[in-house]
């Protein structure tokens, strides 16, 4: 047996041929892109929190998966992974969406804001984050990133919501600790309606 063919070298070889196959497919798809009937190109550039991030995305990959496992942005939480809890909420073009139930390929060319992009450039917390701290809104904290995103989206479109408007806007985010009233107080405080 060839002693130079170690396990490591063998694995390297497999990865290399895999990469070659991927590149080949990419070129083929790009050549056919004109027809409008070819499959999606895997290498895409995403606009996340104002930065362009090139990333290799599988066709059926969800945005939550890409954020957490490809871009290491683990602030976005995956709770149910079925669009039933809201922990993965991010803003796409300013609109709250469940990132577990959006294909990453669907946000090409769209501005995505995740929880990492909510604070100011100098690190100052967003008014919603500060208000959630002041009102002790989070209990265990798992749903908090999603709650923050929904609250930020609400206040961007409606800076002084009534409490019932806030309830409606926050209704797509579950909190299993049941801290809903605290989150609502936080939203009202962030909108300057709670001293």
């Amino acid at each position, binding site marked *: 047996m060839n002693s130079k063919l170690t396990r490591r070298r063998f694995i390297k070889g497999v990865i290399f041929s895999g990469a070659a196959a991927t590149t080949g497919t990419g070129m083929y798809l790009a050549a056919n892109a004109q*027809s*409008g*009937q*070819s*499959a*999606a190109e895997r290498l895409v550039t995403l606009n996340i929190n104002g930065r362009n991030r090139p990333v290799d995305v*599988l*066709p*059926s*990959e*969800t945005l939550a*998966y890409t954020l957490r496992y490809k871009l290491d942005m683990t602030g976005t939480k*995956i709770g149910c*992974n*079925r*669009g*039933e809890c*809201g922990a993965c*909420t991010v803003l796409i073009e300013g*609109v*709250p*969406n*469940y990132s577990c*139930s*959006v*294909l990453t*390929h*669907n946000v090409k060319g769209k501005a995505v804001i995740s929880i990492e992009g909510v604070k100011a450039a100098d690190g100052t917390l967003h008014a919603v984050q500060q208000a959630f701290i002041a009102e002790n809104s989070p209990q265990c904290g798992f749903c908090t990133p999603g709650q923050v995103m*929904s609250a930020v989206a609400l206040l961007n479109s409606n800076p002084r919501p009534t409490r019932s408007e806030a309830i*409606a*806007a926050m*209704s*797509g985010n579950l909190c299993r600790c049941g801290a809903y009233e605290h989150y609502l107080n936080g939203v009202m405080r962030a909108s300057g309606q709670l001293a």
Partner: protein
Amino acid sequence: MPSHDVMPNMELYQPVQVEDALAIADRLAERGWLVGGGQDTYGWLKDRAKETDAMIDLSAIESLRGVRETADGIEIGALTTLTEVANNSVIQDKFSLLSQAAGVVASPQIRNIGTLGGNVSQDVRCWYYRRGLSCYRAGGNLCYADTPQGMNREHSLFETSRCVAASPSDTAPALVALDATMVIRSVDGERTLAAEDYFVGPANDIESTTALRTGEILTTVRIPNTWANATFYFEKVADRNVWDFSLVNVAAAFKVSGGNVEDSRIVCGAVQCTPRRVSNVENAIRGQAKNAATAESVAAMATDGARALAHNGFKIPLMQNLVKRAISA
């Protein structure tokens, strides 16, 4: 059942022109799965309860979005999101029944991406079917829900045939009540169907809830002015206010003249696989005063022919009361 974080790998097509989408749908045929907002699709694929070789994502086709006024009504692109349908000023102004229905679907985030076409074309809700069990609808030869021990509280009262699952769409009954027309395209051209005929029960096709055939795409929903600014009533009853499917819903349109009902269309959802028009009630109240006494006298007719399963008997009085409220409101 194993739970998976990711969908299996597959091809993804993202056409931006409807002609390209039709060509892809035609070429892939049974191998392709049409995706609007994907809110029903992704669960099926993540759970491995259904599989496909390729997804055809229609969400980038701009010509299938938005609301347009026409000479005799409005046209809504099938890819228009439920949030857009709920907030559109023309729909709110003339067909508030549909705005109301679209506004109570699921949760805000789901309405932000879920489409009107997807909401009316969604698959039935049945624990067993969605679990990936080999039931009648999944090509097998038994029903797990219609058994003494089966969990069938959400299931159908009417028109069951082997399968007893209900379709809980909130917008579907509203579109039937508004006498909408569904525009369906394929590479071979266009055909239109009355909303009532778009929905298909298990007796006619147990594997599909709609009349869409392979290679066809629902492109547009047309609502005629016939029922514009009629007296509307919509109510959805579910266990929770948000995120929940209807146990029963009612969408009704009345033309009222001098306090009497000239004509009406009353449709209940989630009581069978398709929206159910209660034509006998519509006929009985024609010419009658639109009030509580009339409502009371016809309510029991609404559930003529209902067959309750072991655990969904509560839907009979629930449906009667919703019809009663629609008429007396």
